């Protein structure tokens, strides 16, 4: 039968380790455990310097670190969200050297010298970017998790149309694409919204573009 003291000891082990099995492991004398575990080889790291929202940053990172994790875990810019972590949902969209990309599918160490803009760099609660303002005005979100990616994508989409980049729905490849709902829906298809705020998102973008679509 378990005495109150034993119970207390086990409970602490569970709380500290976060898993029931840890309580058993803690019974192994420390010296034995150390001898049985080969010294873990530190994973390779590399240095990278880039600019985030106008501020120069230097990091030494495990080479495996995605740009998304560098932003969130190392620079504590948690506005950029991790959704699927496989480039399928667009929640991690940031703007690098003027182009929107999935920050989950790129290594931080590959961005030496790049200029990165996250949702925090577009605007602040006191001084919102026009696109952030329009998302609020048009209720372009519900839970808000995909919103930073949607807004970064939307800002870049308007620049892409302005630059004449064609899309799947552009009828004439010889002409400049126009800001229409059809164009915006196609261009925003890499940003998934589980709450289904799509129509309000398109309203917000057309508002910023200054067109009645």
């Amino acid at each position, binding site marked *: 039968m378990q005495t109150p003291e034993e119970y207390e000891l086990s409970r602490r082990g569970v709380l500290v380790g976060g898993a029931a099995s840890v309580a058993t492991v803690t019974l192994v004398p420390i010296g034995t455990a150390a001898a049985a575990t080969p010294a873990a080889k530190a*994973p*390779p790291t*590399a240095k990278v310097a880039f600019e985030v929202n106008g501020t120069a940053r230097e990091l030494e990172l*495990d*080479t*495996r670190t*995605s740009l998304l994790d560098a932003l969130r875990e190392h620079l504590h810019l948690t506005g950029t969200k991790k959704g699927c*972590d*496989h*480039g399928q949902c*667009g929640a991690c*969209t940031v703007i690098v050297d003027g*182009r*929107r*990309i*999935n920050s989950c*599918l*790129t*290594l931080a*160490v*590959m961005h*030496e010298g790049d200029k990165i803009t996250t949702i925090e760099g577009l605007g602040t609660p006191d001084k919102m970017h026009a696109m952030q303002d329009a998302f609020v005005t048009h209720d372009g979100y519900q839970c808000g998790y995909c919103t930073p990616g949607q807004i970064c*994508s939307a800002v*870049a*989409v308007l620049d*892409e149309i302005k*630059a*004449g*980049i*064609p*899309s*799947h729905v*552009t009828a004439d*490849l*010889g002409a400049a694409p126009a800001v229409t709902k059809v164009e915006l*829906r*196609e*261009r925003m*298809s*890499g*940003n998934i919204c589980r709450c289904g705020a799509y129509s309000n998102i398109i309203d917000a973008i057309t508002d910023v573009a200054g067109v009645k679509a």
Partner: protein
Amino acid sequence: MKSFTYERVDSAAAATAAFARTPGARFIAGGTNLLDLMKLEIEAPSHLIDVSRVALDKIEATPEGGLRIGAMVRNTDLASDMRVRRDYGLLTRALVAGASGQLRNKATTAGNLLQRTRCPYFYDTNQPCNKRKPGSGCAAIGGFNRLHAVVGASDACIATHPSDMAVAMRALDAAIETVDAAGKARAIPIADFYRAPGKTPHLETVLAPGELITAVTLPKPVGGTHIYQKVRDRASYAFALIAVGAIVQRDGTGRVALGGVGYKPWRVEAAEAALPRGAKPVADGLLAGAKTTHENAYKLTLVERTLAGVLAQAKG
């Protein structure tokens, strides 16, 4: 993800030399497919050679009147180039039918050609897959396979090649320029670039280990009406069930390549002679010897009907 060492190189020669020094290395450029596969440990290179800043990012006219597209040219930039839009519209149409805006901003020309299948069993490391783990079997044969190949497949693998761009490149008779570790360059016609799965579906192209793609060249424009018709489960941002890439001339002759039906962009030049007679004889020629599963026989009908639609559209 397995840990790896990393280096950035600034020339193709430095890239191939780095590969020679580091067995187990992979080149990385856009990384949108490779990193995804590394997260799942389907790819586990011990060293990455970053070639994204190698100066192979230009689109240049060739003396023959065609274009040389640098291996590092991003999908967005290739699709947007005015020469491509004017003379190789099929290529722009195929590119913008693929992936999302974010991915096209990162994905490169060479990487697009080398992307791996999206067969769900290739991605599911709990399932047998001869492409991922040679000799382990194929879970797609007899499994959920409505997305899978109807031509060119083997008893070991029925995966399809996922690229839209490659379908256009095949119809346009592109050639893939490479350089190997010894500095030897060669040009591979895209028709000869992909290997049939046979018993070795893990070997996907004729590239030797460490051989680097430097460019893709297009012969001089052939004119005609360029149409890329992709059929998919949703209107945007999905892989093809099937795709038809066609160049149709005023007299009804032309070229056709298919996506979503085999391990490579599928073209049968001999079948194209039937183009003036309509879709059926062409589809019959393209899909001769097709072997369907319990779930993907619809692709044969879908190819014929989509091609009929494309030919009607080309007539205007």
